[in-house]
């Protein structure tokens, strides 16, 4: 497609054409209206003048008779640029006035007429046009008063000439303007298309140019760029996840392999082999659990799990999880309490939120020792709360354990991070990662606070669930406006 052809096919050009036609029609209408109005004005003026003259003359006739009328007419007729006058007998003989010839039959028609005429003393033989009024006088005489229409005709000629010129100018300017405007718009669109192609060919870092005019093209570019940001973040996240998973699983896999190899080398009897195999199975199971947890975190982070959303009661979740873990806590000499008096309805993935809360409770139980007795000397207490606060629901787990030093609080949420004091305890180090991923998936947050003493972990979820259209980067929790 040639450049010109492409130009003509653009919406911008077609739009320009439409505007042009509309504008031209409008201009023509305006001009026509002006012309018609002016014409009417002139006609009215002539009419008025003629009527006044006729009134004057008939007065004269009534007062002073026909002789006087003739005299009056001749006096007026000889003035420069005068009206037209003619007084004839019933037979058509001219008695006074300045009209030389008329269109035939005009005198027989009383009232208003338009006619061609010639003045008596006209040197040239061109015909003129006039608007005349014929009056029948008593005695059969006929009076004609009129005025030349040359002004009207001149206006008409001016308007027609102007119209032709202005339409031509409008069309030329419009086309030229439209051509240039369209070309400019096309250039911007072409730039966007080119960038898009580069991006599609694999360079995800490309972004569409924004001209800074804040018009619809700029807004479109802005939105597309935001979309590209999201895609890039997802791809980065995906790569990171697969890198992480590969790395995080290689270590236990290698360990397992080494143990098996060692057993092959060193084991001497069936029971030792059996022990090694049993160990291998346990390590495999641990590996499978880790893998599933990593997968779940990855899915939560990439927003995939967002199709399991429903309305559920966070208080019920708190009670359920509390009830599940209470015997475990009790066994350890800890008291687990659930404080969820009122229903706290929230929209989200019930399964994931339960699991996230379970992780926090599990951590609380794991890290609180029976000796962590609070000031009042009673048994150490772990409290699970579900409360509504404004437009959010807070699921809180507080324990009187060692807590997390403020400096470590952001680090501890990363995968597989275990703080020094917990290296000896079993666990994968994924609990907090999952809890945070779930919180972010719902458009919420995970807060880790000092419980004075101990740790208070809070999952804060918006009541309405993840906002539709808001893009949340599940790793950082930053909301992006769409």
């Amino acid at each position, binding site marked *: 497609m040639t450049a010109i052809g492409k130009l003509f096919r653009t919406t911008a050009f077609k739009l320009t054409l439409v505007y042009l036609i509309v504008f031209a029609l409008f201009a023509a209408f305006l001009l026509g209206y002006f012309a018609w109005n002016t014409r009417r004005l002139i006609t009215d003026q002539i009419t008025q003048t003629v009527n006044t003259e006729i009134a004057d003359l008939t007065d004269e006739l009534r007062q002073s008779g026909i002789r006087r009328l003739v005299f009056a007419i001749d006096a007026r007729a000889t003035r420069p640029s005068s009206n037209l006058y003619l007084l004839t007998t019933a037979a058509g003989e001219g008695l006074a006035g300045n009209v030389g010839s008329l269109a035939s039959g005009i005198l027989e028609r009383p009232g208003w007429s338009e006619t061609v005429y010639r003045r008596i003393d006209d040197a040239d033989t061109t015909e003129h046009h006039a608007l005349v009024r014929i009056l029948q006088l008593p005695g059969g005489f006929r009076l004609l008063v009129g005025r030349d229409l040359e002004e009207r005709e001149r206006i008409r000629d001016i308007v027609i000439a102007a119209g032709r010129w202005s339409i031509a100018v409008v069309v030329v300017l419009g086309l030229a303007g439209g051509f240039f405007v369209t070309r400019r718009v096309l250039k911007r669109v072409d730039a966007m298309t080119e960038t898009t192609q580069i991006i599609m060919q694999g360079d995800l870092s490309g972004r569409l140019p924004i001209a800074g005019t804040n018009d619809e093209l700029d807004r479109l570019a802005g939105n597309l760029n935001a979309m590209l940001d999201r895609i890039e973040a997802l791809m980065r996240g995906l790569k990171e996840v697969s890198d992480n998973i590969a790395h995080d699983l290689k270590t236990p896999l290698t360990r397992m392999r080494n143990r098996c190899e060692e057993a092959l080398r060193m084991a001497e009897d069936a029971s030792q082999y059996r022990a090694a195999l049993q160990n291998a199975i346990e390590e495999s199971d641990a590996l499978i659990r880790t893998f599933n947890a990593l997968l779940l975190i990855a899915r939560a982070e990439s927003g995939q*799990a967002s199709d399991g959303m429903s309305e559920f009661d966070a208080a019920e979740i708190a009670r359920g999880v509390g009830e599940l873990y209470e015997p475990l806590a009790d066994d350890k000499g800890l008291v687990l309490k659930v404080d969820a008096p009122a229903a706290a309805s929230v929209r989200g993935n019930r399964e994931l939120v339960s699991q996230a809360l379970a992780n926090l409770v599990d951590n609380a139980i794991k890290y609180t020792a029976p000796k962590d007795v609070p000031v009042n000397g009673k048994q150490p207490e772990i409290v699970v709360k579900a409360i509504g606060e404004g437009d959010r629901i807070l699921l809180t787990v507080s324990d009187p354990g060692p807590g997390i030093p403020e400096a470590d609080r952001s680090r501890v949420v990363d995968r597989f991070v275990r703080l020094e004091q917990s290296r000896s305890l079993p666990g*994968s180090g994924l609990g907090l990662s999952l809890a945070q991923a779930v919180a972010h998936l719902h458009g919420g947050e995970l807060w880790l606070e000092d419980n004075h003493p101990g740790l208070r972990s809070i999952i804060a979820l918006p009541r309405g669930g993840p906002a539709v259209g808001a893009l949340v980067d599940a790793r950082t929790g930053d909301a992006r406006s769409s």
Partner: protein
Amino acid sequence: MRLLIIEDDRDAADYLVKAFREVGHVAELATDGEEGLARALDGQYDVLIVDRMLPKLDGLTVIGTLRSKDVETPALILSALGQVDDRVKGLRAGGDDYLPKPYSFSELLARVEVLARRRGGREEMIYRVGDLELDRLSHQVTRGGEEVVLQPREFRLLEYLMKHAGQVVTRTMLLENVWDYHFDPQTNVIDVHISRLRSKIDKGFPQPLLQTVRGAGYMVRESK
């Protein structure tokens, strides 16, 4: 028990067939969806084990077709897709249980046996094992004539165990059916619940009825 395994992974399938044979069950094999459907329609099986991803016809369609032809053979779905939504989809398609891969054979075996037993029998109102009695209507539990006071959750736990008396019940099955949770708690929460229950129904009585099956789960039955 006669089983039909519809699985296209030869290694996994052979392993299953052998493992089932070792515990006394007969397992037959179909390696794609169409063959599986044909044989399930023909034969009389107690339980179908259906892999979700199959050549020619996928597992969920196989089960759906069977159900539309009024074949009510219990079906357990095996799948690498293990999220809750996938499970829900599988059960809605007509499956009776859903086990994500990788699984342990003892887990699979426990669930298959539970499914097989479900096939017959009407719903009883009172469960009895030895001198332990559980009334599902009044929620009363007695052992040796004496009442045992249980918390609501402990009651539900015992009810599930006694419903499958003589069968292995895994920790995952308990978590799913008594608590409606589908995640792996990664700690021994269930064990602690069991030991509490045990202390209420077994302690002080001559015969322990709530037994631990090593490597698999728990079982309620009279000891030999």
